[in-house]
């Protein structure tokens, strides 16, 4: 029960922070990087670590991360993320997580903070057409949380 209310609280907090966040279409990319925090609220690395798993970001479907060794089956589609916090700056990581296609135009990586410009967008995984406004794959605070976590991955 305690855990549940904690989760509810953090979801509410994320939702509130996102209300002030720039819409995905308003985010300013410079050479693929995003200098400013999307929310002004520092990212929570512990939350970001959870988002790496299935059901949220599912980052490890494509990327291997030694720090997440307790989770089975890390993918090989994208580069491994060990040491990624040394190789990239915070603005670069924010830009890549939000919409990697700005930095790598041909990447297969999905754009996690994007709401338009899709072809035949569906309603989640139902196979049916989407109805109404599209939510980004991750909200603004979740992007910040993932960036905070990635910055902890040092060599």
């Amino acid at each position, binding site marked *: 029960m305690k855990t549940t209310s904690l989760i509810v609280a953090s979801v509410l907090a994320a939702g509130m922070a996102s209300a002030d966040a720039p819409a995905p279409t308003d985010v300013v990319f410079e050479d693929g990087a995003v200098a400013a925090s999307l929310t002004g609220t520092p990212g929570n690395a512990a939350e970001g670590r959870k988002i790496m798993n299935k059901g949220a970001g599912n980052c490890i479907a494509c990327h291997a991360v030694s720090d997440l060794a307790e989770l089975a089956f890390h993918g*090989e589609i994208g580069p491994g993320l060990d040491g990624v916090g040394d190789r990239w700056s915070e603005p670069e990581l924010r830009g890549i997580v939000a919409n990697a296609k700005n930095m790598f135009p041909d990447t297969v990586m*999905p754009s996690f903070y994007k709401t338009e410009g899709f072809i035949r967008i569906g309603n989640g995984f139902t196979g049916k057409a989407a109805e109404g406004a599209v939510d980004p794959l991750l909200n603004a605070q979740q992007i910040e949380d993932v960036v905070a976590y990635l910055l902890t991955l040092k060599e």
Partner: protein
Amino acid sequence: MTKKAISLGILALAVGAGSGAYAGPDDDSLVINDELEMVTETAAPAHMEGIDTIYSGWRFRTDETQSLQLDDFDNPAMLTVDQAIDAYSEVDGSENESCASCHGDVESFAGLSAAMPKVKDGNLVTLEDEINNCRSTRMGAEEWKWSGQDMQGMVALIGLQSRGMPVDVAIDGDAAPFWEKGKEIYYTRYGQLELSCASCHEENYGNMIRADHLSQGQINGFPTYRLKQARLISRHNRFRGCIRDTRAHTFAEGSDEFRALELYVLSRSNGLSVETPAVRQ
């Protein structure tokens, strides 16, 4: 930035080498019933630009899954094929006809599936279309649903008559516009995840996506028995599942889009053996 991209590339190689076990297809040979040798690897057809060598999906599966296709007594698809053998000779519908009453022995279909789909009277026609056309116009029977087990059992039974023959679908002449349309669909990045068929099955075959070992997405083994779904799966049903998983609005089974995609994807199997009914994970 370029430097970083390069060093990332090197890292990706290092990580790939480190995890090792799953890089690319394996080296196993597929011989069915100890006598029928299947081509599971050959030079890619000339029209393919991104791939030099094509591999059957069988080469990407675990030894355990592979073994189920080595002997027809172990192949779980054969139960459904046996039912299709019965249905083949059964009279159904108002015209007092069965498949056998016009076509004779089912072996007369040898070679047909290796060259389907094909264009007839300006329409791209799949084996499912031919079967339902026979059922409705010649037998006076109800059409079967595209991915029903009666339909896919019959598609597999007719395909079995071509097992071991090389896939050889025509892509030129009046097939060309359908093939071009299918190719366009293959390379379109659908859905909120913005993934095309090529994103996984051309750019990343051999790599793991979470627990799944990506194949080239060849469809020479379809209808295929999919252990996860415990039944024979049609090509269109698999297309539908893949596009759905990109968080997209899929096309329907039996749609013109999927007919075109079937022709295009099968043309990427030209030269591999017809394998139906294959067994996959």
